[in-house]
């Protein structure tokens, strides 16, 4: 729960991780360790396995080989789920039944074996909505909100349990600039408080100053693990709009590079 506890071991530890879906190997031989307080960016082209990696780290999809430990505990019902906050790329397609922002955020208070709302759930959910600037829309149905507002609801749902590890899946894709700024501010604030952050990015973009380390995936394998790749030449200009991923530091890709999957 509290971020002030000094961690002895790694927050995330994956060894020899492999994922096969429908006979198709998506990830193979991934070794990944995330240290406490780190801000790690996962980069790579579409289809390189970034989302699959994050999902398998959080137990959303089963791993085929290897093992994952979160805060030293193997995945399963006994893992410290209250310390993990996940922000998916978007809400699932709406069904007919409306759900308010408050209801969606409140569902983030459940984890592992905690199947009922804790005491003070309403205030905690309202506080989380205030943190993302949506306190006035707590009782609005999320289906009626814009994409950017829905994203903020999703981050509030992850933050409501005050996680020590925050995992974000492309938080800035398809999102207006003010919401991107909200995301970066929030992540920077959490980082200062000691939260570990794993963020999938298509480009470093507004997150660039926060990133300590970048892992680049290519065809389901780790192609780079170290300092974030720097943009070069004209791409490094302060006002250059990045529209493509810098997948490898040695070979600055042309803006028209297309990754072709085998």
């Amino acid at each position, binding site marked *: 729960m509290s971020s002030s506890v000094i961690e002895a071991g790694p927050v995330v530890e994956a060894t020899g991780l492999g994922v096969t879906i429908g006979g198709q190997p998506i990830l193979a031989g991934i070794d990944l360790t995330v240290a406490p307080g780190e801000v790690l960016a996962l980069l790579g082209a579409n289809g390189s396995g970034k989302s699959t990696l994050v999902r398998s780290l959080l137990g959303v999809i089963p791993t085929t080989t290897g093992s994952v430990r979160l805060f030293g505990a193997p995945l399963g*019902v006994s893992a410290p789920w209250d310390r993990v906050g996940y922000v998916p790329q978007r809400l699932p397609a709406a069904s007919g039944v409306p759900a308010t922002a408050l209801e969606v955020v409140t569902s983030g208070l*459940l984890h592992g074996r905690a199947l009922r709302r804790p005491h003070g759930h309403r205030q905690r959910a309202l506080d989380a909505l205030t943190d993302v600037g949506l306190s006035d829309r707590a009782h609005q149905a999320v289906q009626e909100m814009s994409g950017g507002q829905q994203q903020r609801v999703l981050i509030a749902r992850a933050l409501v349990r005050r996680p020590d590890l925050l*995992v974000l899946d492309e938080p800035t894709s398809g999102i*207006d600039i003010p919401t991107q700024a909200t995301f970066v501010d929030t992540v920077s604030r959490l980082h200062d408080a000691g939260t570990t952050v794993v963020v999938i990015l298509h480009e470093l973009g507004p997150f660039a100053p926060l990133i300590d380390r970048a892992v680049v995936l290519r065809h389901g394998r780790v192609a780079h693990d170290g300092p974030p790749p720097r943009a070069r030449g004209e791409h490094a200009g302060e006002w250059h709009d990045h529209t493509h991923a810098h997948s490898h530091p040695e070979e600055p890709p042309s803006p028209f590079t297309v990754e072709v999957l085998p």
Partner: protein
Amino acid sequence: MTAWDQVVELLSSPLMQRALIAAVLVGAAAPVVGTFLVQRRMALMGDGIGHVALTGVAVGWLVGSWAGLVPQDALAVPGAVVAAIVGSIVIELVRERGRTSGDLALALMFYGGIAGGVLLIKVAGGTNSNLISYLFGSISTVSTTDLWWTAALAALVLGAGLGLRTALFAVSHDEEFARASGLPVRFLSMLIATIAALTVTIAMRVVGLLLVSALMIVPVAIAQLYARSFSRTMTAASVIGVLVSVTGLVLTYWQDIPPGATIVVLAIVVYGVGAAVRPLVRRTAPPRDPHPDMVDDVLLVDDAVVDPPSRTITG
């Protein structure tokens, strides 16, 4: 006879008393489960379970007649409970796999369920009218034993559906997030499937297996015309479920019409009226900028020429 006398007469009939209690229990419980099913986009699941439950009724009947039980159909409801639970778990497993072939597997199960039921009930010595009472309900012949079954199962359904509603909401709303939170997704999905199965078997007496799904789904459809939150949708659906069930039943006291069909038609009429007057009743919000805090980040030609540094967003 005054209207009051008629009401007193209605309420003093033991037959009607039992039927009314059953209608209230089923009317309240079915939409609670229905809300989760609609949220999971499985509105027709109840229908599928109902088809499979018919085979359960027939198997119960068959076993009862072999064992020489009196009445012959003593095991019909337990048979339906077992078949409905097995059927709902199979449907849930097929959904979990998410394969396209699941569609066909469900179709095979539904029609197999109905055909098997019709066939077996004849083998067991049942008649067409026995069959009709299960397919379309027979609330006017609810026995005290039936009522105890209904009360116990309704308590189970409401206890699980309301007691764990936040967890069931979480898993129905966003399964991926529920998994990433370590919630027992499979257990919760199976729980929804099981309480849906139990609801089908208790609603069988009131509206019949072929119309069970209507009592689970139509009140939810009515409620979501007006409600703006999940909990209000569920509460309103439950209240509507009780109202249409009781009203439908009471109508059949004076008119010789089948109660199950009356209840369902009534619910659909309410939906139609609700949908028609919705634009008139629902307060229209004055048009406003949905994003008052939004920075206009698209530069138009008419805008003053802006040099690059001021493009930084400060808002």
